């Protein structure tokens, strides 16, 4: 395990200290709770947005705290949900009386901790709290035979859409409605070439032979839908996009946002080569790409691979997506 860290048990706290130091104009830490909040928050009259999850997915979620997106991000241990206590503190902090929306990635631990915090905040603190659960990963069978589809990089679009609606003065109901519209139009799928190693365990999360890749791999190394010999970028894009469009058919004339997300160790060059391939496939279908995002938005430590996310847009979503935002990892003018 070759890592630029100190004590593996302190990675989250030290990371957040570095984060707060780098972005002190945007954010600050809430005590020693591993919760990042807007420097200028709570914003009076605005619906508060709280997200978070296991660490190791940086810049998610702290990088999306700021004007036009989240009010707080709760950081759990590496790949482990944050605790109810952290989430509750975040909810209480961001609430300015207009209520709080939780944006939860669909993993058992995350859902349990966020929902419990929601219930406690409602019952004990009288805060009006609601939630949306992001499950954009089409590589999981969504039936009752599983914990349901996972939340992956598409989550950032939900931060953006809900954040813009909240910033524009939407009520809790409005903000949730916009997020849910986006969720219905959101699909993602990832793939991996090589694993990552959680600092505390020192062992790779999975193994892949030197000539194989896994299509549908999750952001913690959860199994995908198939292992294949290494394919070219164009074929990989085709494999991911065909699963996405099988689940959410796109028609000629549809407008979408396309995100090509790196998992941590993939060269920026390769992300653009993937983005080219995915863009070309969409264009071939007559689909217009109104916005392209290429980079590391939701990583898995040093996993190598990428995910594609498609958000189908209507006029409402478009104006929310294009609204300005000013956060450490997502600045739009």
């Amino acid at each position, binding site marked *: 395990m070759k890592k630029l860290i100190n004590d593996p048990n302190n990675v989250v706290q030290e990371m957040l200290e570095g984060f707060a130091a780098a972005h002190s104009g945007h954010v600050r830490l809430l005590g020693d709770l591993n919760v990042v909040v807007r420097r200028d928050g709570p914003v009076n009259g605005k619906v508060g947005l709280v997200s978070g999850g296991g660490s190791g997915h940086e810049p998610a979620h702290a990088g999306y705290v700021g004007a036009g997106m989240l009010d707080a991000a709760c950081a759990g241990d590496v*790949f482990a949900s944050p605790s*109810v206590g952290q989430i509750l503190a975040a909810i209480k902090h961001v609430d300015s009386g207009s209520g709080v929306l939780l944006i939860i990635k669909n993993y058992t631990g995350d859902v349990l901790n966020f929902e419990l915090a929601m219930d*406690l905040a409602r019952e004990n603190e009288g805060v009006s709290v609601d939630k949306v659960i992001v499950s954009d990963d089409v590589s999981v069978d969504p039936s*009752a035979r*599983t*914990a349901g589809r996972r939340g992956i990089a598409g989550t950032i679009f939900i931060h953006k859409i809900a954040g813009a609606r909240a910033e524009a003065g939407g009520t809790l109901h409005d903000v949730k409605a916009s997020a849910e519209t986006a969720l219905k139009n959101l699909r993602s799928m990832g793939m991996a070439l090589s694993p990552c190693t959680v600092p505390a365990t020192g062992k790779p999360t999975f193994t892949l032979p030197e000539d194989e890749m896994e299509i549908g791999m999750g952001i913690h190394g959860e199994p995908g839908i198939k292992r294949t010999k290494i394919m070219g970028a164009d074929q990989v894009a085709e494999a991911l996009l065909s699963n996405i469009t099988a689940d959410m058919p796109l028609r000629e004339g549809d407008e979408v946002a396309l995100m090509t997300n790196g998992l941590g160790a993939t060269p920026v060059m390769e992300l653009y080569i993937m983005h080219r391939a995915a863009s070309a496939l969409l264009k071939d279908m007559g689909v217009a790409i109104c916005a392209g995002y290429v980079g590391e938005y939701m990583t898995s430590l040093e996993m190598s691979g990428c995910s594609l996310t498609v958000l189908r847009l209507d006029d409402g979503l478009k104006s929310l997506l294009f609204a300005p935002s000013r956060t450490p990892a997502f600045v739009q003018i």
Partner: protein
Amino acid sequence: MKDITPATLLGLVEALADTFEKEESYVNELDSKVGDGECGTNLRKAFRTASDRLNAKPPGDAGGLIEQLGMHLITSAGGTIGLLFGVGIHAAGREVAGTSQLQAADVVRMGDAAVEAIKIRGKAEVGDKTFLDALVPAVTAFSDSVNNGASAEEAFGNAVKAARKGAEATTGMVARRGRASYLGGRSLGHIDPGARALVLALEGVEKHLTGT
């Protein structure tokens, strides 16, 4: 069986924290087969933190202490297993709130309350390959034994045996809840780490409360 006093319980919680410290890597190893390999770490941290917090301000009655332990696990654990153990313990404690001298009949109600709360939160059923597959048989065995006139000690012994059997049986199940469910059929042949951890916990309780 020892009297279940707050002091006994505080000792028990510390003993459980020690257990999960000792068994951390074993349980992680099981979790790495079907999950993300940190179930043992989650439990070690959860019980250690809960034990520290309880000791800092221990409630005066057994029921209250158990409820409080549950709430500490719920609020501080993160992850899945610590929180769900907490949900069960919290419901069990609430069931006997104010009671300082627990009877076997109290423990039966506690078990039922725990199972119900865990099912509501986690939306899992018996057969989904979770620690419920060890807990539910244990609770049933305890209440059956008590109903058949066994001593609390005997009944608890039977509960532990049933939990062991139930945990073993998860090896033959396909996971339908939690991270393991993404594996589909590939989860077959591996024991559920949470179920095994529950057995370790019950063995810890047995050892602490009966001295065996």
